[in-house]
């Protein structure tokens, strides 16, 4: 029973991989067939934000009552979230190449926001690496993680909506859901989101088990 969600995630992702390529999509100018990327690019970002939220949750728990388990969970979740940002950027960049005509553009606040979020989490990892004492490291990095999470959300959720953006749903552009995410696409998109989020949670559990085993060996 405990492992059901793992099976579910694999099935959902397989389903969206196949059906995402075969299903019918609306014909739109410029986007053409690249609209299928909505099944891969967007859910991966959902998974990343989900993992960062998990990391935030465990950081808060670490601050409220110190426990090395919570601390290691916060760290592992942020590592997995960071890991998801790489395919997120790769699929986004590929998509941008075929719709906006460039791999990367500084005109778009979401891209800048993502770049800064990556810097923020790199800084978080460096902070963790530079403190030796376990308790101190837990506290310092939890404080930074909470602060950074809020700033990251300001950057990728708030700022794009007030300035011009090339992304749908921001800066006056209509959101995908408004007119071109038809029912056929919804049947793939929502399962894809659930599938990737569950998959990220599975990865997180695996990594956390590894960390705990390493910790036990060191003890």
């Amino acid at each position, binding site marked *: 029973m405990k492992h059901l969600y793992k099976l579910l995630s694999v099935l959902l992702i397989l389903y969206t991989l196949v059906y995402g390529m075969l299903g019918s999509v609306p014909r739109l100018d410029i986007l053409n067939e690249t609209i299928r990327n909505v099944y891969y690019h967007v859910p991966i970002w959902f998974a990343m934000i989900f993992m960062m939220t998990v990391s935030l949750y465990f950081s808060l728990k670490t601050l409220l009552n110190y426990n090395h388990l919570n601390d290691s969970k916060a760290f592992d979740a942020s590592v997995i979230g960071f890991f998801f940002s790489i395919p997120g950027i790769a699929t986004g960049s590929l998509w941008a190449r075929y719709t906006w005509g460039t791999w990367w553009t500084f005109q778009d606040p979401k891209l800048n926001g993502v770049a*800064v979020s990556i810097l923020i989490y790199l*800084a978080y990892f*460096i*902070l963790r690496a530079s*403190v030796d004492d376990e308790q101190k490291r837990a506290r310092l990095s939890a*404080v930074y993680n909470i602060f*950074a999470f809020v*700033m990251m959300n300001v950057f990728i959720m708030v*700022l794009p909506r007030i300035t011009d953006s090339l992304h749908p749903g921001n800066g006056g552009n209509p959101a995908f859901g408004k007119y071109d995410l038809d029912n056929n696409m919804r049947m793939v998109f929502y399962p894809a989101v659930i599938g990737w989020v569950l998959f990220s949670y599975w990865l997180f559990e695996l990594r956390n088990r590894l960390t705990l085993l390493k910790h036990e060996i060191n003890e």
Partner: protein
Amino acid sequence: MKELIKKEFLLEFRQRSTMGGVLVYIAGTIFTSVLCFKGKMDKPTWNALFWIITLFTSVSLSGKSFLKEVGGSALFNYIYYRPQQFIVSKVIYNMVFMLALSLITFCFYSFFVKNEVENTPLFLIVLTLASTGLAGSLSLMSAISAKAGGNFALMSILSFPVVLPLIIVAIKLSKQAVDGIEWAGVDTGLLWILGALNVLTLALSFLLFPYLWRE
């Protein structure tokens, strides 16, 4: 609380060398960057360069604001003050100091380059709000990096990404001040966001600092 703020200022004025050092730092940075641009700058460049200089000055300044709090004096503060008092005094001190420094930067900059600002009241408002926000987040970052061993590289790595949203909104607003947009045309939404960011960073520092306090 008042004593703490007073102590900060007293310490600063007793150590004239740091004050002088900061002034020379600002003058040197401005002079170098102006030479790099050969004095030819259009308005967006002027604006961007001003904020870059301000950002670097504030990071290097606030980076040392917790370095003194080690050993005996830290223990003394730990026993006599509450962490909230402590962070508020640090933030107020940093805020005043950063505002003063950004004004000095502005003067030097206008002297060496040219004063491009056409809507001065708006520019001063943005400067004040930005200094407050910077003081709020940089004080916390400085506390973290001081506890983590206190090297300057860590301070800049930690603080640049988290102050970027603030700086970007400030740059957008000050661009409007530089362009001399009339008050009716000023984007008040951005001003509200800048204010909200200030409240957010100050609240976060206030709430999170007590957890750094325990050693």
